[in-house]
């Protein structure tokens, strides 16, 4: 790989394409080119997908990785930082979403981003002493942490007698994941919202280390339970790239069936929960009813209600027979008819429209500046859908239709879920009609060669990627990345013109992952 010392942008010839399903360009840079590469990416209309760190041998040096997405494909930029330097230039001014990733990177590896004025801990709470960096070698040996709560996190508060604060969480009123929200309000109007996450931090990245790639697949499927198919596929894609293994076409098609069914199930669940948050229980019952039928069919046909462990490195762990395919086709058609009926009915419901339209709005220009993507991004006019722009097998042949809306409010995210549900039903129908014959998995050798690769898929919430590096048939470093990293800061802005009572609705319309973010 090329090392670049000059402060000019590396020319195309110096980028190296790594073996991976999507077109990933990889380059190692030095500090001066780090910032200019990020600037060039932004100026071309690209986005930052993720930023993560890796400790080198005996903590003598560190790799700082950034993954960007431009019009020509993925750019994986790696900066080497010596431990004597201990810092790297921040990208937070170029990509706002980088700020929290840099804070998390410091908490885990101890390398500070210079230029990022926010130096508060992000994933680290008080039970875990400052100066301990779990992803460094040998830092955890013989050490055990306490369970102290996060009592004195310095929130950025508005100092005025007219402003009151509402602390919410980490234990919420509903059945949702833990996180803390600090509202500063004047009357009912939200003046500022600040999130405090990290409550579900489970040390997943550390747990990956030293596992073999097969044990890693099970863990990858449990990073965020609602996106298990997405993570398992992204992870498996990375493993297959390293093993130089091509999966059979039938396996690829069946994976896509899993991914689309996961999208359908989650969209139905979100429509139910949004209805409930708007005080419309009819809506909740109707959508939960269809979702439950889908989950039961999953259990009967795929063996798991949420499709956990269905996608494995090399292929899939199940197969479909013609009777099962016929059942799936018949049922999805009937669900589609029911959802269409509800769609028409709810579009006319003035009480519901009153809550949804204009609430939690992010205009397209702002969405672009914040680097939004995924379902929430498409609802704010950001045309990113990997199944359309960088399709991998089997999506090249499916002609996926990207669903877009320029409105950017809760109603747009609500409506987009209907449209993506219909599209997923269409894709599933198509996939099952053209299901290729043959094996459902290829063999991954136990002695997998050393290497690093990237797996990336468009899961229901947005693009999920897994960056994997393998050494001596063991996982050396695995970084799973959720689209929630980019979208959580957007939520802080989306609530600004609304009242506190609208927050649950706006939050639900994004439905971001805590577990996938806190890792």
């Amino acid at each position, binding site marked *: 790989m090329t090392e670049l010392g000059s402060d000019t942008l590396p020319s195309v010839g110096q980028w190296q394409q790594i073996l991976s399903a999507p077109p990933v360009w990889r380059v190692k840079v030095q500090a001066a080119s780090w910032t200019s590469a990020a600037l060039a990416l932004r100026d071309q209309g690209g986005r930052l997908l993720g930023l993560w760190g890796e400790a080198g041998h005996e903590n003598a040096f560190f790799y700082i990785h950034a993954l960007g997405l431009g019009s020509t494909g993925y750019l994986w930029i790696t900066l080497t930082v010596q431990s004597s330097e201990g810092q790297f230039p921040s990208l937070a001014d170029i990509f706002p979403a980088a700020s929290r990733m840099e804070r998390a990177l410091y908490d885990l590896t101890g390398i500070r981003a210079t230029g990022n004025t926010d130096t508060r801990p992000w994933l680290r*709470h008080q*039970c*875990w002493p400052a100066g301990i960096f*779990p992803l460094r070698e040998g830092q*955890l040996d013989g*050490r*055990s*942490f*306490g*369970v*102290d*709560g*996060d009592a004195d996190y310095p929130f950025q508060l508005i100092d005025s007698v007219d402003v009151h604060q509402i602390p919410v969480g*980490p*234990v919420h*009123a*509903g*059945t*949702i*994941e*833990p996180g803390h929200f600090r509202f500063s309000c004047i009357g009912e109007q939200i003046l500022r919202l600040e999130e405090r996450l*990290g*409550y*579900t*931090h*489970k*040390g*997943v990245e*550390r*747990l990956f280390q030293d596992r073999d790639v097969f044990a890693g697949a*099970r*863990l990858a499927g*449990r*990073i*965020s*339970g*609602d996106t*298990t198919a997405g993570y398992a596929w992204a992870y498996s894609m990375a493993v297959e790239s390293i093993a130089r293994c091509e999966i059979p076409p039938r396996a690829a098609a069946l994976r896509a069936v899993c991914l689309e069914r996961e999208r359908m199930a989650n969209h139905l*669940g979100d429509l*139910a*929960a949004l209805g409930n948050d708007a005080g419309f229980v009819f809506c*909740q*019952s109707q959508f*939960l*009813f269809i*979702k*439950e039928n889908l*989950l*039961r069919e999953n*259990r009967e046909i795929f063996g798991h*209600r*949420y499709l*956990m462990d269905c996608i494995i490195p090399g292929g899939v762990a199940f197969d479909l027979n013609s009777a099962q395919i016929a059942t799936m086709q018949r049922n999805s058609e009937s669900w589609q008819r029911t959802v269409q009926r509800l769609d028409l009915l709810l579009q006319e419901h003035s009480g519901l429209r009153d809550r949804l339209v204009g609430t939690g709005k992010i205009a397209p220009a702002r969405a672009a500046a914040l680097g939004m993507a995924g379902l929430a991004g498409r609802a704010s006019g950001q045309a990113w859908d990997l199944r359309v722009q960088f399709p991998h097998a089997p999506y090249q042949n499916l002609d996926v239709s990207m669903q877009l809306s320029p409105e950017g409010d809760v109603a747009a995210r609500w409506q987009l879920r209907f449209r993506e549900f219909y599209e997923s039903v269409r894709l599933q129908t198509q996939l099952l009609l053209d299901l290729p014959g043959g094996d459902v998995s290829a063999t991954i050798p136990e002695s997998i060669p050393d290497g690093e690769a990237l797996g990336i898929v468009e899961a229901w919430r947005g693009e999920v990627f897994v960056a994997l590096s393998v050494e001596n048939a063991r996982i050396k470093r695995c970084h799973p990345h959720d689209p929630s990293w980019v979208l959580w800061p957007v939520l802080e802005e989306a609530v600004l013109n609304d009242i506190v009572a609208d927050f649950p609705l706006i939050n639900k319309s994004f439905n971001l*992952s*805590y*577990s996938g973010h*806190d890792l």
Partner: protein
Amino acid sequence: MYRILKEIWRLGIPGKKIISAKGQGPFRRSAAIRHVDAGSCNACELEIQALSGPHYGLEQVGLNLTASPRHADLLMVTGPVSRHMATALQDTFSAMPNPKKVVAIGDCACTGGIFAGSYAVVGAVEKVLPVAGQCPGCPPTPEAIRQTLVQVARQTRS
């Protein structure tokens, strides 16, 4: 009769008799449940949400999910008790009035599951709170969760 047949046709449950929480335990006719996610991957939450759907009729068996620990009889815990949630979990339990019981839902809450041994998790819920019932599974089905809750609610001794 027509309604029963229609229910079976709609829900696919062939006339299974649902055991209710109504018993001689401390909660008598009903138990209110507070749920705390102590670092779960959110699959257990999806199943708990499914419990409130029309297929399961949680309230029919005398159980309901409550928004405040002050109103709760049962504490339903999911996840491998991440260190960052341990204090909040204990605070939630202390805020509940007596008599009260804790139910561990899912493999992670029962044993630490796939996350056991990580620097950031405590492990099974019983390391932090006294557990009266466990429901293993990754995630456990809504039916299994409902059954465990009913059993614990009917226990006579805490």
